């Protein structure tokens, strides 16, 4: 069962999910992040309006987690296309671009002790962001900038989570 914890402002949804541990398919969703990050602790611009959530994944083997990370990018691209008729370019395995500007990122983090003990998939999707700071405006975009309309974050998030859950079932069987 998917359990969504909605929060206003956090440092990072993934950092929180890793700290809290919790049942698989618990989702930490925040309206904004003060220290959102991507791979190698790259900063992820996370103001109010964007969609930021982290999913605690069931214990899986590492190959399945890699496959799932790639599939998550496809699921997000598909969700965006089906809802808004907007084509995303997937930069494998974990970034989504629109018109050569980054619109979403996925970071899967695993805790290993011999095998996988715990996994969190963090997703950042630029939805209702009107403007990016100078250092990002040439390389980042949002659905609102591209479509000129407000996006229902909760609806999109639920579609993405359900898609990922369905895919994991398929690959781990």
């Amino acid at each position: 069962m998917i359990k969504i914890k909605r929060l206003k402002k956090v440092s990072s949804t993934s950092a929180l999910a890793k700290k809290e541990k919790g049942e698989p398919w618990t989702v930490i969703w925040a309206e904004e992040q003060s220290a959102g990050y991507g791979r190698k602790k790259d900063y992820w611009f996370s103001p109010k309006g964007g969609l930021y959530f982290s999913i605690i994944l069931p214990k899986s083997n590492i190959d399945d987690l890699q496959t799932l990370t790639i599939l998550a990018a496809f699921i997000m691209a598909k969700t965006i296309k089906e809802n808004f008729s907007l084509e995303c370019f997937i930069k494998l395995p974990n970034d989504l671009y629109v018109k050569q500007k980054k619109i979403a990122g996925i970071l899967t983090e695993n805790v290993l002790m011999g095998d996988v003990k715990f996994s969190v998939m963090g997703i950042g999707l630029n939805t209702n962001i009107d403007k990016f700071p100078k250092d990002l405006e040439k390389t980042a975009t949002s659905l609102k900038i591209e479509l000129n309309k407000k996006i229902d974050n909760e609806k999109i998030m639920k579609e993405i989570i359900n898609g990922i859950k369905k895919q994991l079932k398929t690959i781990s069987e």
Partner: protein
Amino acid sequence: MIKLKLKINKKDYEVEILKENINQIKVKVDDKDFVFEKQKQKKEQISVAKSSIPKRDFSKKEIKTPITGEISEIFVKVGDFVKKNQKLIILSAMKMENEIISNSEGKVKKILVTKNQKVSGNDTLIILE
């Protein structure tokens, strides 16, 4: 002088009785000396047992990587004491970030990798003692 080989709990001990007189016996176990005095004999025997317990715990404990990847961060240095489940290393692999945590507690004896180094599955990263 008497030399003995003892096997206790699957571990071999070399025991040497070095000095013997009426009031005192000096016994060498591996490379440790123990002196027993007659009136304190009971007490000292207990201390032998105590000092041989940690020795068994000093067996080599290796932290290995289950996957191939690149070391992106190391959180400990030689001499640090680490607890079980403590974060030791971040390994970037297959575009995922993997925290390698300790499987036991101990002192960091050796770190066999450096930042940005590529490692293969089953490589030893850290040795604890």
